[in-house]
């Protein structure tokens, strides 16, 4: 490891403080001299990687952490540079951020709002982190985002898919690269309609918490727009491990499609149970019974094993993408760790780069400068006529041309519709990209009812 310096509060590294050491402890210095929270004044800058290290999402968290370490290497000019070479913005030079070496601290969110906030707070208060990123669930993302807003640091969300993160709970200091439930629905519905026909009856099983609700709302609206009928929506407790009693009635409900609005362990179990009950071998209403999983991830697909074969869903990114950015990222990640990155790893890597780039372009670590840089110069995605179509436009980080929309700090980019591969060639080759849905199709206005009720507020530099 090259990272031999301890993370520490930037303040301490100034000569002035070193002088204070000689001058002996006589004064209380209220270090209000800095213009914003944790202003780095030494030769390095500290980022906080807050990922689930214990609990059901620990593997996803571990993958996020790998991506972060890779991003730090690349920012510091080590390794092969990864996506720095393909990124359309050329502000980053591989000499850290604004010439300061990038260091990091890690913490465990435990996938609990309280623990995640405690961990983030310790990074901010103790380690002097200037930016917090990571996470694997929407509840945590929303909670930590709110904290960062109050504390005056930037939050670059990791894996969070709920509409609320950039909807009713959006914050000026928070940014999301990952796609959201609405986009999943908008991308998936037309493919499903084309494939399974427009007159389907869908039965929804939905995890009973915020993400589940927004996911269900989105996919139901999108499929109904294609002519599908939503027969029933059953909320399942998050703590469920056995979904048999929710799956058993499906076949007699008149529905011919089962939509599983579940993620992680819930999804693995509900899909496994659905396949056990032989749903996919049945004919209902003269059609083959089908199962849909709106939000997919490769790690989940691995957990579900054989059961995912032929099942459709959507995903933010997949390692088999053939654009230059994705290829570069897979190459450096795979070389370092021996397996391809997950979508969570991708989004976390990209978020780190985007943050660093915004600091470089804005010329300051000040959160307000970062917010301004990430909100961009009012550039627009081509082919979408909307007043809200402005923000920071970039390319080369996978997913094609991408807009960080200034209105709600949500990234707009192509969405992948995938299905479980029938004949995987390797243990990583589980999903197959069926369609790359163009951004225009998943576009929504910031005042879409599913995202209403929030207020971005103003950037908070703290201090």
């Amino acid at each position: 490891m090259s990272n031999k310096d301890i993370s520490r509060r930037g303040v301490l590294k100034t000569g002035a403080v070193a002088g204070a050491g000689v001058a002996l402890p006589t004064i209380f210095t209220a270090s209000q001299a800095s213009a914003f929270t944790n202003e780095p004044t030494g030769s390095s800058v500290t980022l906080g990687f807050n990922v689930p290290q214990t609990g059901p999402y620990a593997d996803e968290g571990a993958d996020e952490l790998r991506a972060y370490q890779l991003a730090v290497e690349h920012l510091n000019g080590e390794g092969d540079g990864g996506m720095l070479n393909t990124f359309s913005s050329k502000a980053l030079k591989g000499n850290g951020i604004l010439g300061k070496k990038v260091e990091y601290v890690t913490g465990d969110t435990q996938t609990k709002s309280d623990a995640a906030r405690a961990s983030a707070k310790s990074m901010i208060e103790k380690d002097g982190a200037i930016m917090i990123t990571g996470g694997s669930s929407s509840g945590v993302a929303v909670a930590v985002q709110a904290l960062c807003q109050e504390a005056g640091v930037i939050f670059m969300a990791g894996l969070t898919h709920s509409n609320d993160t950039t909807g009713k709970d959006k914050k000026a200091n928070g940014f999301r690269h990952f796609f959201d439930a609405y986009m999943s629905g908008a991308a998936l519905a037309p493919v499903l309609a084309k494939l399974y026909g427009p007159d389907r009856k869908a039965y929804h099983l939905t995890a009973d918490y915020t993400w589940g609700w927004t996911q269900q709302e989105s996919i139901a609206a999108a499929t109904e727009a294609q002519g599908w009928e939503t027969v029933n929506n059953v909320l399942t407790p998050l703590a469920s491990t056995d979904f048999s009693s929710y799956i058993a009635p499906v076949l007699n409900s008149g529905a011919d499609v089962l939509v599983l609005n579940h993620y992680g362990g819930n999804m693995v179990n509900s899909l496994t149970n659905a396949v056990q009950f032989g749903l996919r071998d049945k004919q209902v209403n003269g059609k083959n019974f089908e199962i849909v999983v709106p939000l997919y991830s490769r790690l989940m697909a691995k957990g579900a094993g054989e059961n995912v074969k032929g099942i459709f869903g959507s995903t933010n990114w997949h390692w088999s993408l053939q654009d230059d950015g994705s290829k570069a990222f897979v190459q450096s990640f795979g070389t370092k760790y021996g397996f391809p990155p997950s979508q969570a790893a991708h989004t976390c890597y990209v978020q780190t780069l985007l943050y660093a780039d915004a600091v470089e372009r804005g010329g300051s670590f000040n959160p307000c400068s970062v917010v301004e840089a990430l909100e961009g110069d009012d550039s627009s995605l081509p082919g979408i006529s909307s007043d809200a179509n402005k923000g920071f436009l970039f390319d080369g980080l996978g997913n094609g041309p991408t807009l960080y929309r200034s209105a709600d700090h949500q990234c707009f980019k192509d969405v992948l519709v995938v299905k479980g591969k029938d004949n995987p060639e390797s243990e990583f080759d589980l999903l197959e990209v069926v369609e790359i849905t163009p951004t225009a199709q998943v576009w929504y206005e910031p005042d879409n009812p599913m995202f209403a009720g929030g207020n971005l507020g103003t950037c908070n530099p703290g201090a």
Partner: protein
Amino acid sequence: MDAIILQILNGLDKGSAYALIALGLTLIFGTLGVVNFAHGALFMIGAFCAVTVQRLLTLSYETVDPTRTDFLGNPMKVKTPYIESWFGPEVGASIIEWSVPLAILFAIPVMLLIGYAMERGLIKHFYKRPHADQILVTFGLAIVLQELIKHYYGANPIQTPAPDAFRGSFDFGQLLGFDPNVIIYPYWRLVYFGFAAIIIAAVFSFLQFTTFGMVVRAGMADRETVGLLGIDIDKRFTIMFGLAAAVAGLAGVMYAPINAPNYHMGMDFLVLSFVVVVVGGMGSLPGAVLAGFLLGILESFASMNEVKTILPGIDQIIIYLVAIVVLLTRPRGLMGRKGVMEE
């Protein structure tokens, strides 16, 4: 009607897992007087016995296939399990496919050994200690066990499918004269229920009809008196601990194809199984089994749409609600004995 039959089946199936775990928990409590918070971890280890056997059977050697490339563009390394190369691809594949049933043979000695080691190495020193200490130490052990599993197998669930012959589902309804596809039920879940019934019956007849079992039962009722008869009751209790561990382990092995094992599945079952044991009545084996099935069935009924539309969210709280009602109407659970764990 068909919906009710389906939920009864589901309930019996869930109840099987609850009953098996609660049975072992009650055995340990009844014989050794120890509150074992590591019992869920034993169930989890059982499930991971299935994973381990699957891993062992699929131990592979690598050959390089130059015609294909891996995700980095290098020639792909193809893995072939040794079993397949020894017995030929077809026989090999079907051996691998049967890894869960084979894991039963593997799990019995492993679980007995783990149970024995646990009792001799740790639990033994806690007989005379307060229940609070027992809880703390077994909880610590449970954390250690699950973290070790997490370290070797990761946090993601791992699929351990049932043999092909038991995949898919069985049209139960046609047997009962319903239309096709009305009551279908997965084969493996039926197997699980049958398996649980056999294990429960075996444990009860072992306690009922063998001298060993009679001594143990007498010891459960009155340890002192049995000790006075000059019988080394402690030794038998040690063996009972191993047996309880094996029951939990077997419940875990057979559960693996139903839901992919993950390292925290033990904790998921822990609280529930304590509720089951207490609702059944501390120290009562039939009570534990009865309560297991009762709660399983009630939980299944509570998740029916018809019930949920009237009482939203009832499926999340039903178990606890039932526990409260039972304990308030029957002070010692369904079949509990007086004076056990009441102080």
